[in-house]
């Protein structure tokens, strides 16, 4: 889907009943410093709907035991709930098979897993890995660690002043030695949606695999890994209204099968003797030890929740709020938006002249408004725009234009205090 197609499709979405949706999220009715909570930090972690909280509670109250091991009833029920969650993720990503879904701790672990298994086996000294200038540290450091181990060459695709991925520069960086392209689908610091289809097509033409960091994309756009034809897709449940401590690595079955295991332990083996161990098939080969059982169940419930509303509708709603916010911030004197790509999802990063983002954060917090301030685990992005940090408002399905009004009022207070 091109950017224009996305815009068209979102344009045709019926509006959401946000007030009803807000009632699904218990935390949104609480006060902070005596003020109504205005939560604008879902990019860091989203709040949880009642359905997710209840699913986790039900798991522990009614369906809990260790999985894949017991012959007794409860263990079977728990195993079935865990595997059903895997199938929900499969359908959510439109993966061909459920064994292509590996449960991990989060996006960070998913990327490290690929680096340490696929990477260590297949990437040799002088081979190239390409990332972009807008990666989260989670998609930079694992490749630097692999570079230490293998002597690979790490190449970085530059971005323009709007924070857009430069496809032409990318094309120039691709070479016959490129083994892997690992890029973000949506930037957490800038909100940019990257041209993943072209990125994947060009990489495949050179015989390189592609890993997409989907942490910021899955809450805002439907994903079809088969249509994308990406080789790996990584995301965390907690940004998708699910629990923290669980996430997903999707990988094409034949690639996963050829990869060595990640960690050793229980569940990832078929048989063990002191002389020899036979590894289990995928996905279990990559899931050593007792997993986050209730986490998987919670993720399944989160997927049910967003699917019932419809990701296109969620995206359309967020786009409207983002558009409103982008217009409204223009009235704040001197405010500089960092990240002005044509294709954006859910993120408004900005700075104010002569006010450090940390002070913006504190003043907004006093009005009950939660934004993130800092480098957003993307220090190279801060360097690219020559700022030490930014303030970032990030949106979710439950945010409203009224909350943007509160943000604007809060920013006027910042100006009032700092002059």
């Amino acid at each position, binding site marked *: 889907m091109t950017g224009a197609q996305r815009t068209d499709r979102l344009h045709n979405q019926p509006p959401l009943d946000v007030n009803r949706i807000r009632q699904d999220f218990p935390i949104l009715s609480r006060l902070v410093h005596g003020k109504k909570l205005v939560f604008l930090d879902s990019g860091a972690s989203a709040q949880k709907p009642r359905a997710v909280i209840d699913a986790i509670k039900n798991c522990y109250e009614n369906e809990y035991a260790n999985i894949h091991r017991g012959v007794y009833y409860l263990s079977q029920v728990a195993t079935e709930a865990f595997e059903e969650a895997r199938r929900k993720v499969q359908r959510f990503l439109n993966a061909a098979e459920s064994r292509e879904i590996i449960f991990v701790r989060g996006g960070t672990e998913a990327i490290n897993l690929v680096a340490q298994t696929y990477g260590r086996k297949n990437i040799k000294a002088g081979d190239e890995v390409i990332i972009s200038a807008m990666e989260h540290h989670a998609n930079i450091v694992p490749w630097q660690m692999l570079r230490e181990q293998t002597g690979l060459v790490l190449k970085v695709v530059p971005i323009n002043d709007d924070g857009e991925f430069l496809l032409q520069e990318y094309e120039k960086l691709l070479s016959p030695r490129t083994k892997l392209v690992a890029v973000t689908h949506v930037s957490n610091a800038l909100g940019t949606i990257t041209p993943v289809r072209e990125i994947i097509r060009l990489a495949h033409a050179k015989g390189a695999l592609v890993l997409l960091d989907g942490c910021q994309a899955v809450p805002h756009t439907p994903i079809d890994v088969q249509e994308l034809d990406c080789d790996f897709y990584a995301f965390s449940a907690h940004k998708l209204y699910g629990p923290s401590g669980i996430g997903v690595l999707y990988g094409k079955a034949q690639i996963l099968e050829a990869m060595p295991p990640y960690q050793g332990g229980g569940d990832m083996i078929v048989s063990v003797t002191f002389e020899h161990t036979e590894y289990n098939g995928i996905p279990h080969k990559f899931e050593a030890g007792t997993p986050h059982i209730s986490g998987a169940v919670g993720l399944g419930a989160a997927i049910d929740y967003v699917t019932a509303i419809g990701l296109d509708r969620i995206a359309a709603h967020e786009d409207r709020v983002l558009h409103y916010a982008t217009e409204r911030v223009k009235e704040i004197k001197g405010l500089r938006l960092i990240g002005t790509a044509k294709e954006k999802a859910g993120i408004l990063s900005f700075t104010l002249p*002569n*006010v*450090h*983002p*940390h*002070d913006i954060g*504190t*003043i907004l917090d*006093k009005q009950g408004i939660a934004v993130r*301030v*800092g*480098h957003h685990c993307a220090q190279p992005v*801060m360097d690219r725009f020559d700022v*030490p*940090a930014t303030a970032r408002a990030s949106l979710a399905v439950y945010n409203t234009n009224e909350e943007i009004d509160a943000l604007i009022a809060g920013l006027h*207070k910042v100006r009032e*205090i*700092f*002059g």
Partner: protein
Amino acid sequence: MDDLRELYQEVILDHSKRPRNFRRPATSNRLAKGHNPLCGDRLTLYLQVEDGRVADVAFEGSGCAISVASASLMTEMVKGKTIGEAETMFHYFHDLLTGKSEPSAPPGLEFEKLSVLAGVRDYPVRVKCATLPWHTLTAALDGKPRDEIRTE
């Protein structure tokens, strides 16, 4: 709003906008760098220590209003003081921001100046911003004297 005025007092805003001793001195014999990775506050502190006294002190860097104001106030206060006095001030300040009780100001040193930062107490995540310059100062005082640092 009143709470915020308590934190962002005029003195603090003034020091953050026009920090005192904000320069790189021609000579200094102690140097330390401070960094608060959470918010990206960075400062470099230059000291000229002579006969156990802080003969000169200056800083450079960037940071939030609290850290810049705290650094600026600190340089004003410790200039001319003995190392021992500077350390006493640090402990007093540290207790003021983190201590459970109101520390009593030792006599003789102008501690009132520091009390403008007492409001930071109510903002636990910001305490580090205010104490960063002081931690950097202790690092500089503990550090071995360096070769003279020159401006180019």
